């Protein structure tokens, strides 16, 4: 099926109105020699019933966070999603609308994005937020680019080795053709070595990139790191877990200049890695350097409060190659999900989720490290995620857990950029509010004699 309207009779009527004899005639702009002289080689079409059976079959071959007890982390988490988030995001008026260029026809989305921006500022303690970016990894790169524009320093970005390895890879890819050097600071006991950081920061440095909690789940001294960046005139860019801000100090109070985040924990389904939600917020003096869309409050011709896409003069359709970024879409539907999620939870709910995750993670760490040959890799405070070192073989350990119905991971060995000594024996364990003590105890028992 193809969702078409034109019946053969109507097609004839329309062709007659146009004054041609066939649809072929309309295609005569395309030189004959360039036409495909065969059918596309695609699978046969399926009816809705067949499609559903096919997709259910394939979906059934995947093991999900519902079918096994999920302790997987590494930037995407099995946090609970209240049903209202799905209910709102599944309204056709939201998900089948386009970018709100025509403000009069888009006040619903525009107001929601304005609310998103405000909630992000409230959550992070920053002054301004954009209306979202692709996801957390590119958000780091966009923040680095933004820092270069703000500082007018295009040669050097310093990034902690404790930042998500994939985020660091994206930064390398994005800057590959540019004269910008990406300097990575090796991790020291799971955190930043402040002396090393200080050594590497110089007056050519556009920004220092930090992740809090870092990829290993550990907490960094964001205040001190920001201070070090500022001492050389660089900006402090920090990538956060938004859920952690239910407990941890807001970056706005720690001297951070640009906050970025992967917004997936804010009510967005795991869906194998995307679409997720890039968050970027900053101090107000940098507002015109922000990449991506942004919504502004405005007044209409009758003096009524309304919302419009703002600061469009920074964007590609006006500035083309001088635009602050090539980003054209935002992640509207996911920003909406996060807005609904934050509206439902508020500060109190976020605090509850953060605290439950934190308490359960610490309990899990305690239980698992009580086992022989299993210990915490790093002696740092952590939030909801931690790295286990398993001397006897981390793969056998995770296999034993999997057999018993528990997914833990990812294994650090799959990230080339992590120090080999850490990589070979390490595995991440993430614990959210969805995990129960019973599950944790059962996991512990399952791996007791792996």
């Amino acid at each position, binding site marked *: 099926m193809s969702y078409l*309207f034109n019946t053969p009779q109507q097609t004839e009527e329309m062709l007659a109105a146009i004054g041609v004899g066939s649809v072929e005639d309309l295609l005569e702009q395309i030189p004959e020699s360039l036409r495909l002289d065969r059918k596309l080689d695609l699978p046969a079409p399926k009816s809705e019933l067949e499609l559903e059976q096919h997709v259910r079959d394939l979906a059934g071959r*995947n093991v999900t966070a519902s079918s096994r007890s999920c302790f997987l982390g590494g930037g995407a988490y099995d946090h609970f999603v209240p049903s209202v988030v799905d209910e709102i995001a599944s309204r*056709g*008026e939201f998900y089948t*609308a*386009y970018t*709100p260029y025509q403000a009069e026809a888009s006040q619903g989305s525009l107001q929601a994005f304005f609310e998103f921006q405000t909630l992000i500022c409230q959550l992070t303690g920053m002054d301004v937020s954009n209306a979202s970016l692709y996801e957390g990894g590119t958000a780091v790169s966009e923040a680095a680019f933004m820092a270069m524009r703000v500082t007018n320093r295009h040669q050097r970005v310093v990034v902690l080795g404790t930042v998500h390895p994939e985020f660091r890879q994206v930064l390398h890819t994005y800057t590959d*053709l540019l004269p910008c050097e990406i300097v990575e600071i090796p991790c020291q006991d799971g955190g930043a070595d402040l002396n090393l950081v200080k050594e590497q920061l110089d007056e050519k440095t556009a920004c220092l990139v930090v992740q809090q909690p870092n990829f290993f789940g550990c907490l960094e001294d964001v205040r001190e790191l920001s201070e070090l960046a500022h001492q050389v005139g660089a900006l402090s860019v920090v990538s956060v877990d938004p859920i952690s801000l239910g407990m941890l100090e807001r970056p706005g109070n720690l001297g951070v200049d640009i906050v970025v985040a992967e917004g997936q924990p804010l009510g967005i389904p795991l869906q194998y890695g995307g679409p997720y939600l890039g968050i970027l917020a900053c101090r107000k003096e940098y507002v015109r350097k922000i990449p991506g869309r942004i919504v502004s409050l405005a007044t209409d011709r009758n003096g009524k409060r309304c919302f419009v896409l703002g600061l469009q003069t920074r964007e590609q359709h006006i500035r083309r190659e001088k635009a602050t970024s090539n980003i054209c879409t935002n992640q509207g*539907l996911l920003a909406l999900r996060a807005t609904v999620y934050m509206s439902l939870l508020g500060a109190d709910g976020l605090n509850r989720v953060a605290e439950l995750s934190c308490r359960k993670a610490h309990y899990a760490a305690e239980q698992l490290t009580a086992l022989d040959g299993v210990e915490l890799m790093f002696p740092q405070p952590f939030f909801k995620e931690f790295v286990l070192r398993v001397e006897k073989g981390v793969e056998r350990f995770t296999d034993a857990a999997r057999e018993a119905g528990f997914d833990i991971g990812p294994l650090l060995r799959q990230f080339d950029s992590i120090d080999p000594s850490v990589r070979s024996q390490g595995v991440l364990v993430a614990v959210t509010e969805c995990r129960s003590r019973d599950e944790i105890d059962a996991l512990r028992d399952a791996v007791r004699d792996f």
Partner: protein
Amino acid sequence: LATKLLFELSVPGRRATQWPDSDVPEQSLDELIPSQFRAESAPSMPELTESDVVRHFVNLSTKNFSVDTHFYPLGSCTMKYNPKRHERLAALDGLGNLHPYQREEDSQGMLQILYEMQEMLGEIAGLPAVSLQPAAGAQGEFTALLVAAAYFRDRGEKRTKVIFPSSAHGTNPASAALAGFDCVQLQASSNGLVDPDDLQSHLDDSTAVFMITNPNTLGLFERDIARIAGMIHDAGGLVYIDGANMNAILGITRPGDFGGDMMHYNVHKTFTGPHGAGGPGAGPIAVRSFLEDYLPGPVVRKDTAEDGSVTYRLADPPNSIGRMRSFFGNVGILLRGYFYLRTLGADGLRAVSENAVLNANYLREKLKDILPVPQGERCMHEFVSSGKLQKDERGVTAMDIAKRLLDYGFHAPTVYFPLVVAEALMIEPTETESKETLDAFSEALHAIASEDPEMLHQAPHSTPVSRPDEVAAGRKPLLTWTPCLND
């Protein structure tokens, strides 16, 4: 009725969610996380009940125009119908709730879908090597340019120049600039097509990539595309096809067949990923085989064992430019594209483009008396009318017309783009609209053509707001709510 902001609905003490008590042994917070890391006070966020939140957002939604409620002929955006089954299938637990770091052996169903998607996109493009990673069309452009750069670097060539016509989408030059290339823009020619001679004058051994949308943003097929591509190739450069307008040519002609070396798709346009009021999109790229090794990873590979059993795995191409984002890609949108392609098949897909072209030409014909199209005799899936007649004779601008259409229950076309057409109205009806709707749209435009210009300058009249002052908002942007902004 005005819709208050969330913040204005807040009442201290209200709650929408409740959470379980902790079931693990109580520890003081200080034992868990030292106090210097913890916030001293809670963020100041709204306090609401669940029904506050529901009623707020349901009512907000009704202030949007959308494909589900309105004809949305926004040129260049391909606002086609989004099949409802896709939403429900993508939300199946086995797909929607799959962690990106789930093991390959536990993700075989997903990997099969993604592998088949790569194969289908390669076939439709005529460019066999595909990476699904880019999150949107603009990122696809950027990715392809990095692929091109890596290719030239391997060949020891220093090529710095990216060329594009003036009618190009703004993301083309922006992506080129972001990647570190020099941008060269071709002058617009009067027939709306790229002038090969003009192009020739810009070619030299610094030419890296020529970026072109085909059909172009005027809805015209670049007749000389094969010759143009040959010129680029002769100069040692690569041809990039912006796939934004693929809805016009599915199964009819293929970028790989008319000279393209690289392209991106907009899965959210051509293959019915819903637009979500501005995203998410998905911008997979397809390239020629000699560029395959540079693609960003991971891509999906298929292994067939001797007993015929098949497994799928993730792999990084050997000379990959690296990652473009974390995790695999915008899988949720790719899934919708996959469902669509599996539903349509080859004949269905070709019928999509044929009907998109038919609808566009029909509407073009119906409007030509009041909104003539300066370039071309026919169009592909969209056309760009000029409102110059209206402007000159009655002082009615393209914007006036666009705004007034909202009163008639139609979303506005894209206006003032591309810049080569005066008072441009860029109209793309798509194949999922009926002749009756096109007729009604035409009638509305004809009615508008004889309405009082003063009234039109003030339009729209029936929408929740009318003509926001965007200039003032740009001068003094108000980007977050504060209590003094209460309505």
